[in-house]
């Protein structure tokens, strides 16, 4: 579960040039092109109030309906007073921590006493921060390194953590080894946020027995699950509809954001929000835009948002060069949740073309805003994008270009996709759905009669 966005304003754009009377920006000569500049204009006032009001469970009623809240309260009834400990590795992103924190606070409101435990990492933090690669590593050295790192955590923390509540959730590998032998009084759940479908055989030989000591395992996608003898459940990573990056915005603020970054709202906007680099196919998105633009007028907004991937300087240079040649390519640097929210809202199409995707949160955020989304068919994305129903799944740059052209020339289809996309997120990818899944799982593990 994972990323939300940071809360500060630091947005810059490649340039800010006035619109001509036609609404199009004048061609830019390379000599006159300034380098990426700091914002000179007054800071755009964020819509965030000085003292944000704490978000409560009842606030979600306006989003999901009172009937859904009643269901959550019912599901929590048999769990009241039964404690939950959630063990998070410290290398979780701030966004990931934020989501877990919100989840825990909602459970607490439902009288399920939940708390987060964040033990220290005793060694090899870098390795444990890139679990997919570590587990897939077939080399003997890699296997030993990972095994030593995981077992060191469990040896160091097992007794000190006092994990004695009825429900214990362990996130990912760093503390996977602390699981106690099965007992009637406790349920241990292993929450996996990475792709474990193809573990290296040498790693699997020691890891599988550890994981099978759990009562259940939870995965973000059916594609990520390995063969385990324990029950495995599907929990989509979810977004918080009331967070800064997802909540409704004042139209005036949205307009200010567009003006500051030089986005012409009278013309179609194609947007990608992801760090610049090969991992997010930034160059491919530019190519798709350029191909589509031969037939349809549009702008491309590339938002370097710091999504956990480092910015690739070569890709950034190429993007800048492309922007210098084409005034309709707008590069934006921002970590501001509100600005990202606004940029998603003004988009006609949102494109997300990573080479792998563990959370799908950028996709879910765009879908929540009712946008037509084009995404690469990797990782969790096919769970979000049902092809031709909630968006388009693509497998190449050419395919992406074709779909961009198609959607811009058939805006009714784009609108229907956006409508379906929002409903799909509402049904399956909101944090309240996550709360429901956890409550159901706790009920099942408590031996409550579950009808199959």
């Amino acid at each position, binding site marked *: 579960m994972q990323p939300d966005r940071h809360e500060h304003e630091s947005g810059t754009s490649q340039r800010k040039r006035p619109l001509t009377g036609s609404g199009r920006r004048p061609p830019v000569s390379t000599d006159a092109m300034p380098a990426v500049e700091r914002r000179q204009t007054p800071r755009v006032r964020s819509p965030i109030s000085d003292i944000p009001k704490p978000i409560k469970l009842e606030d979600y009623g306006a989003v999901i309906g009172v009937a859904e809240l*009643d269901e959550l309260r019912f599901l929590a009834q048999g769990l009241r007073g039964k404690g939950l400990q959630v063990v998070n590795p410290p290398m979780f992103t701030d966004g990931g921590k934020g989501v877990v924190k919100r989840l825990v606070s909602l459970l607490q409101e439902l009288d399920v006493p939940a708390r987060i435990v964040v033990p220290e990492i005793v060694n090899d933090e870098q390795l444990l921060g890139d679990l997919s690669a570590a587990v897939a590593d077939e080399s003997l050295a890699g296997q030993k390194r990972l095994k030593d790192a995981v077992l060191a955590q469990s040896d160091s923390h097992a007794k000190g953590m006092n994990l004695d509540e009825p429900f214990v959730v362990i996130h990912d590998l760093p503390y996977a080894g602390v699981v106690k032998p099965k007992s009637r009084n406790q349920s241990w759940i292993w929450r996996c946020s990475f792709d474990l479908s193809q573990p290296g055989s040498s790693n699997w030989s020691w890891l599988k027995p550890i994981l099978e000591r759990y009562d259940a395992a939870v995965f973000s996608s059916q*594609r990520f699950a390995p063969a385990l003898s324990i029950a495995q459940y599907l929990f989509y990573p979810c977004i918080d509809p009331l967070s800064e990056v997802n909540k409704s915005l004042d139209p005036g603020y949205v307009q200010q954001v567009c003006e500051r970054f030089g986005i012409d709202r009278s013309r179609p906007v194609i947007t990608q929000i992801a760090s610049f680099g090969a991992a997010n196919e930034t160059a491919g998105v530019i190519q798709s835009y350029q191909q589509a633009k031969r037939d349809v007028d549009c702008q491309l907004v590339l938002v370097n948002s710091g999504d956990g991937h480092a910015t690739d300087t070569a890709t950034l240079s190429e993007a800048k060069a492309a922007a210098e040649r084409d005034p309709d390519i707008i590069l934006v640097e921002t970590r501001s949740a509100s600005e990202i929210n606004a940029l998603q809202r003004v988009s006609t199409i949102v494109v997300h073309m990573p080479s792998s995707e563990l959370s799908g949160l950028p996709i879910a955020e765009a879908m929540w805003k009712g946008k037509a989304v084009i995404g690469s068919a990797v990782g969790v994305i096919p769970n979000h994008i049902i092809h031709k129903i909630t968006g388009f799944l693509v497998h190449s740059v050419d395919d992406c270009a074709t779909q961009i052209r198609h959607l811009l020339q058939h805006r009714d289809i784009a609108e229907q996709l956006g409508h379906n996309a929002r409903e799909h997120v509402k*049904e399956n990818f909101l944090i309240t759905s996550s709360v429901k899944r956890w409550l*159901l799982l706790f009920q099942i593990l408590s031996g409550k009669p579950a009808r199959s």
Partner: protein
Amino acid sequence: MSVASGTDEQVQRLPVRWAKTPFYFNSAEHLVRLEQARAGNLRELHAAIASCSEDSVFQHTFRTLQEHHFIREGYSNDFAQWAYFACNEPALAEQLSAVDVREFTSIRSLRERLLETLADYLKRNSDVRERTAREPFYFCSSSAMIVPTPFVARNLTEFAKALERINVHCLHYHFIEARLRLQLKSNDFSLWLQQQMGLNQAADLINRIDIYTTTLQGVRNRILRILETTVA
């Protein structure tokens, strides 16, 4: 004027008929469980459908309608969807889409129909049996908990008012899943209207609502319109 309030005003002019047995609106919440079975081609799909649990067949046919309740058309069941987009077999996808869950009162018979459809297709198109799909079909199942709602109807007015307020999961439970529970080609709403309210025609019209060409919200609206017409 809402349908319910219109119904309310009209019903108030008629003698109120009270049900001997009230209608208790319930819902069901499901947790999706990942199964080990997977299919990488159509032959494997056939084999896996033949051997998977009934929960799995239910998940990929009945339950998927709830998960995708907002889709007006173009999504019948997960098997048809996979045949079209992962296997590139539109003809098979059409045939699988035509499998209407409303015709079945048991998972056993539904499974038999799916297998028959697949087997016929593979017999006529043997060259596609082993063709690797773009991505595997991952079998899932679901565990459910019944969740009561605060809504109870003892007469038609209360029934219509409750219908306006229940969520789509409750609708799915009473209108689509009910067939398996009742083992009848009907639904909870129609049965209650027929047995408790004597509204046979309305019950029949409601049972005929096509769930595959509308959303669950659309189903709700149609039921309300039928009720409104009935008391008019």
